[in-house]
């Protein structure tokens, strides 16, 4: 492993990859600071720009955006009670209180330090678990793969916010949209309505950009703008010895919880930070301080969301299965680059796997520097009014989508999904499961066909193979568990911010 990691560093330390990592981390911090634009929208927006890069460089940059956003998101939560990201909502509870008590400096410091420690730990975990899981995944047959994807889809729908049945519906609809285009096995055109542009299927980037980028702009426009100026002065940006003692255990617990939640399908940063806060509030010695500016209440969730942002790469890199919408975008980026994500990736693309891991570590280091001494710059960024920002985002979208194929058709697809994304938000249908279903749909069909061909049309193969059977059993347990009112209440509470 050590040897491989060293190899990774030689890949990540080339000038091109280092600058990609830095740009990613910088952009990630910026969008993390800015409310109203999230990592999913940004990554889909920048996807077209990465086509010209080598795959490793592209993924390093896109990954930097994701974990960078976890750092940046905490800044506005603490200083202005305004979460920049969903994963930082929970940080407002104690972070803003600390700022009000004149402790903005330590709050910001602990968020960055916690994130750094968590990021480094999670990176090691990715390096250790990656090859291990890959070895397991290589023994999977088509039936096992199908069941694994089904489990992933179901768990991610179950864990997403709101009505579980609607999430599953969105996911299945996403699988259905993924069927549009040429059928790989028979070469037949499906649901293309004789439109030549549709024979390659619905574009992944236009769909993601419409549902997350454009719909987000419309939603932000209808909401009244609330931005308070910073009232507190930032004091010392470091921790006292006493504070170190208080946060050590919460950072460790947040990192552990975040790492585990990140690997789960549908997990990811938002869920982990809320889980970590809830856990900390229950077991901390300073329970009475929570909600009034407890430093533990900042340390634990900020460590957790960053750990989760890194470990959610594990299922992607080893099994080729995206755990959340950001990872679905990574699958899209890899496929566009001509790389099929899956268990053979570590062997076939060692540059990509080990380079990415090393870059995560370097990126975390850069982020501490980007965030702590340069905090003033980020606060100033918040003063850019939204009426100057949204036309800029829109035009980036338009140019980016057009340049995918140099074809206006993709722009119209974006318009359609922009409308749909806005509609979905009005009727309580989460768009993320649709994107994950869309990415996994074609792979599921292929594995289903292969499995059924091998079993001569006998569906029992899914229950007879032990791996497949246990994965399906887990999926059933997940659905049943969420149907139980007591567990569902717990999830809703955790997602609603405890």
């Amino acid at each position: 492993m050590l040897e491989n990691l060293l190899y990774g560093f030689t890949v990540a330390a080339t000038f091109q990859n280092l600058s990609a990592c830095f740009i990613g981390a910088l952009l990630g911090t910026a969008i993390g600071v800015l409310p109203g634009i999230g990592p999913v929208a940004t990554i889909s927006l920048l996807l077209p720009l990465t086509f010209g890069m080598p795959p490793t460089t592209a993924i390093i940059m896109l990954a930097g955006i994701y974990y960078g956003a976890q750092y940046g998101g905490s800044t506005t939560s603490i200083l202005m009670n305004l979460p920049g990201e969903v994963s930082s909502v929970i940080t407002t509870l104690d972070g803003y209180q600390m700022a009000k008590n004149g402790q903005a400096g330590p709050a910001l410091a602990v968020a960055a330090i916690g994130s750094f420690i968590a990021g480094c730990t999670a990176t090691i975990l990715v390096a250790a678990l990656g090859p291990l899981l890959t070895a397991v995944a290589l023994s999977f047959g088509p039936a096992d793969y199908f069941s694994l994807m089904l489990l992933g889809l179901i768990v991610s729908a179950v864990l997403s916010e709101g009505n579980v049945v609607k999430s599953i519906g969105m996911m299945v609809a996403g699988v259905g949209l993924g069927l549009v285009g040429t059928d790989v096995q028979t070469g037949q055109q499906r649901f293309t309505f004789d439109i030549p542009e549709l024979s390659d299927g619905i574009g992944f980037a236009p769909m993601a950009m419409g549902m997350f980028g454009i719909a987000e702009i419309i939603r932000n426009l209808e909401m009244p703008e609330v931005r308070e100026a910073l009232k507190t002065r930032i004091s010392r940006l470091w921790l006292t010895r006493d504070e170190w003692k208080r946060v050590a255990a919460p950072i460790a617990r947040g990192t552990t919880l975040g790492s585990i939640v990140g690997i789960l399908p549908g997990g990811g940063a938002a869920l982990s930070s809320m889980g970590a806060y809830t856990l900390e509030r229950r077991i901390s010695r300073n329970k009475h301080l929570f909600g009034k500016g407890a430093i533990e209440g900042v340390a634990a969730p900020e460590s957790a969301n960053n750990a989760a942002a890194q470990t959610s790469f594990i299922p992607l890199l080893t099994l080729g299965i995206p755990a959340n919408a950001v990872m679905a975008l990574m699958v899209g980026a890899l496929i566009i680059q001509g790389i099929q994500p899956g268990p053979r990736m570590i062997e076939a693309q060692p540059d990509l796997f080990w380079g990415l891991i090393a870059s995560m570590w370097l990126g975390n280091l850069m982020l501490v520097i980007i965030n702590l001494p340069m905090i003033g710059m980020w606060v100033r960024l918040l003063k850019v009014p939204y009426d100057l920002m949204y036309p800029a985002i829109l035009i980036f979208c338009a140019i980016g989508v057009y340049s995918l194929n140099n074809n206006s058709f993709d722009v119209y697809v974006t318009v359609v999904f922009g409308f749909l994304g806005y509609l979905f938000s009005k009727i309580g249908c989460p768009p993320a499961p649709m994107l994950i279903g869309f990415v996994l749909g074609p792979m599921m069909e292929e594995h289903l066909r292969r499995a059924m061909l091998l079993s001569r049309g006998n569906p029992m193969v899914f229950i007879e193979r032990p791996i497949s059977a246990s994965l399906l059993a887990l999926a059933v347990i997940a659905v049943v568990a969420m149907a139980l009112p007591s567990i569902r209440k717990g999830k809703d509470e955790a997602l609603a911010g405890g």
Partner: protein
Amino acid sequence: MRLRPDAQDIFAGVMFIAFAGVMLYLNFESHPIGTARRMGSGYMPMLTFGILAALGVAILISGLFTGPEPIGRFAWRDMGLILLALTVYGLTVERLGFVISLALCIGIASLAEKVWKPLRVLGLIAFMLALCWVLFIWYLDIRIPVFPWSR
């Protein structure tokens, strides 16, 4: 159970059923289903949209009792302007070139502001033109007509 319709769930249920229905119809019309062993191109769509229709029915029925949850107001004007701006960009970029299209797109989108300030919009257009020129044309060198005459 008392009838308490939930507009959001009912709308979502109907949407899923309608989508699945149309796709199932198209599927049976034109794609061979095949057998479980040798699946035709219509097999997976049949499964997928069959399940979607069933989920739609479940959402619709449960939506009759879980309400009331009204559908929030649609910001028609904002939505229309943003989508129109993007459509206009798509329609014009090949014929009129990137400079005019970009200006049109930003101009239309800016109408969604609460207070429309023409000078501010002009400034933004100028700034974005310069930025996009440097980034996309000069640095990334994407193939895009710049002026109406440059094709």
